């Protein structure tokens, strides 16, 4: 297992390098630069000095090399805009984003998986139909619109929850953004779980278990659930990555202080170090989650070995 872990960690290096290279390449061809967003009125001589100070007068390959060298020492660079180290900026934003994503995923798993399971046990029934309508709706709803609806209902009409902000670090402020973000993975998990359970229920080993006289509860618990979990876990892993991207809209809507809003503002202001740092953190998070999921496969299904 250790060798598997090391191998997987080594495999992340080219992925990270590819992402960094891609971002670098994109920002070297995208029009607009930090210098032009800094002031409406500066003379070319001053702009040239500023570009030199920020290292923007160097060819792209030199800048890329310098960045990689710094990255190897854990230095994400300094924000062009705020003059703060990017690591500091990300550190301030990481926890709120993690809170939001894990809360959303918790909602998705707690609601979506049982819903899919129950729907699959009585296919075509009332619960199944209702669950699938809910799932399709959840997948179709635009987050921005859903968030506004939730704000309107739970903040303005019912007065149960605050409509925006971070409060003292989450708590009741987290509920509406987490639900808004969690509805889509919840719907996907419900559909995935239903499909997986339906398929497993007709598998040979389930038929064999039943023919051996095993009770339906035991069949579902020991054979269906465990096998369905592999697919559910895969979906959860992929959805974590998707949530990092979708969080941008939700964070902005609810004034949630996460990495998403940092990324949006940094892109708009061409703050390249902050953009690179934010994207890199998203990628590393995605890779880490998927590595964890891979490790969990072995726990769930002993047939999977870390060869």
């Amino acid at each position, binding site marked *: 297992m250790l060798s598997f872990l090391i191998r997987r960690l080594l495999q992340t290096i080219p992925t990270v390098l590819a992402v960094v290279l891609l971002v670098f390449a994109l920002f070297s061809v995208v029009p607009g630069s930090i210098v032009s*967003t800094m002031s409406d009125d500066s003379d070319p001589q001053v702009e040239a000095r500023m570009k030199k100070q920020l290292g923007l007068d160097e060819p792209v390959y030199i800048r890329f090399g310098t960045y990689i060298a710094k990255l190897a020492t854990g230095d994400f660079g300094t924000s062009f805009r705020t003059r703060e180290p990017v690591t500091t900026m990300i550190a301030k934003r990481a926890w709120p984003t993690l809170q939001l994503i894990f809360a959303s995923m918790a909602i998705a798993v707690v609601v979506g998986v049982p819903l899919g399971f129950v729907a699959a046990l009585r296919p075509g029934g009332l619960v199944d139909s209702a669950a699938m309508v809910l799932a399709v709706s959840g997948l179709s709803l635009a987050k921005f619109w859903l968030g506004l609806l939730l704000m309107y209902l739970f903040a303005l009409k019912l007065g149960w929850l605050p409509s925006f902000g971070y409060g003292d670090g989450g708590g009741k402020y987290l509920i509406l953004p987490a639900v808004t973000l969690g509805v889509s993975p919840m719907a996907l998990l419900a559909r995935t779980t239903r499909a997986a359970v339906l398929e497993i229920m007709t598998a040979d080993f389930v038929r064999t278990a039943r023919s051996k006289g095993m009770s339906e509860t035991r069949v579902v618990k020991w054979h269906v659930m465990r096998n369905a979990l592999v697919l559910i876990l895969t979906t959860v892993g992929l959805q974590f990555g998707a949530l990092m991207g979708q969080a941008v809209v939700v964070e902005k809507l609810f004034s949630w202080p996460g990495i998403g809003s940092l990324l949006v503002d940094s892109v708009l*202001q061409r703050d390249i170090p902050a953009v690179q740092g934010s994207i890199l953190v998203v990628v590393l998070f995605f890779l880490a989650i998927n590595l964890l999921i891979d490790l969990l496969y072995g726990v769930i299904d002993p047939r999977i070995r870390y060869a």
Partner: protein
Amino acid sequence: MIFKVMAIVAGLGLALAGSAEAQTPRKGGTIRMTAPYGSSFTSLDIHTTQRAQDEIYAKGLHRSLYIWDSAEGKPVPELAKEVIVSGGGLVYTFKLRDDAYFHNGRKMTADDVIWSYNRIMDGSKAYPGARYVRIIEGAAEVEKGKAKDISGLKKIDDFTVEMKLTEKVDPGFYLFTALTSIYPADEAAKDSFIQHPIGLGPFKFVEHVPGSRIVLERWDRFYKPGKPYADKLIVSVMGEAAARDVAFRNKEIDTSVLGPAQYVAYQADPDLKGTIVEVAEVFTRYMGMNPAFKPFADKRVRQAINYAIDTDLIINKLVKGKAYRATSWLPLTSPLYDKTMKPYPFDPAKAKQLLADAGYPNGFEFEWTTSQNESWGLPIVTAVIPMLDRVGIKAKVKQVEAAVLSEVVRSGDYQAYVYSQQTGPDPQAALKCFHSATPQTACNYMNFKNADFDKLIDEAGQTDDSAKRGQLLQKANALLYEEAPVWFFNYNKAVMAVQPWLKGVQLNATELTHQNVEDLWVDATSPAK
């Protein structure tokens, strides 16, 4: 030169101002403002950011040598008790306040003023406030790395600074924004300053939750007796108009900037109509035409475009009345706005005639660069295109991001562009943008060159007679109308909803969200603690 702002007030705007005067301000409470122009504050170092968003919190935290007085419609000394003008209007001696304390308890001195301006002129950092401090003699040399200190700034004693200017201008117009805030020289040089800024403002820093809010609390040693009134100031970042709308209706925030759609909705809602405050801001929206593109070199073509567009229709239907029709360059709240000037009427026949006279009877085609902006960008361009088409002019849209548009405008790499440009509060500075000596990279974005115009601006800059200066500048503004280097679209009408318990709101024509927060107070009906 004292003038009254021609603030256009509606709804509760007048009532707010009136009631604020009539009632005794209440001490305590929390003011909850919103920052509507993005999803975060750019920086806690206000010298580094020119975004209107950041100046909202900076009005609580920092102070500059001057401050904008919305009632008078002009900048007034803030950190100086007395200003003595000498040297033919080029030398200003500031007797500084000796009761202004930074939030670390240290008294402000002349050294802090000089240090702050020297810092802003560090060309390697390109601080946006440099364009204002550049009026001080020797500042440009520091910016270009040719000198270490601004030669035009001299410390006379701990509380007296002498400032020599490069030209006869009122330095108040240049040194009132937060971009030129006075920092504590010893603290601001430290790395920790950016995490925990220290200023001279009525509120001191407590907390910044990036992407969410800034919290400030009352600075008890603020130099204005009895102020600020409130205990706490919270500025929440709320870039989404719809989210602000819910929060405002839910009484979670005290102020909310309204876009065109919300403006209509609030006007129609009897419960919300009274919360509206509006003012004509000093921004002119226009389509700039590049004279290097042959058809636009002809004045008749530029005038034809002004005649061909039904500007009133666009303002009423598309902008929902949230703008004032532009008659020329200087906006409605400019002290030199000429009420007698009439906008170009909608007259397609005249437009066609002018085009034919200019040698374009069948029109021509041009590329129109625009951003997505809802008030003056793509939606407006889309509405104008059929109007131009009716007189034979075909426009092709080139859509770019806002950051790119500002680069395009400054580089001159366009045939036409649509933009919103600050045209005040100083009319002289606003008009000087069209002087042929002003580089395109500065603000002469249309590379306008006109000898008569230059003469008027030069004469206005040389005269000591303020009345004569005003006349010359008004003539220059009228000349711009005639030359029509732009399609004169509108002047921004800034609209903000203000909760009834928040008092003392000022109709700031330079930016409505920028409030002198020490004058704001909340009555006992505020739901905030």
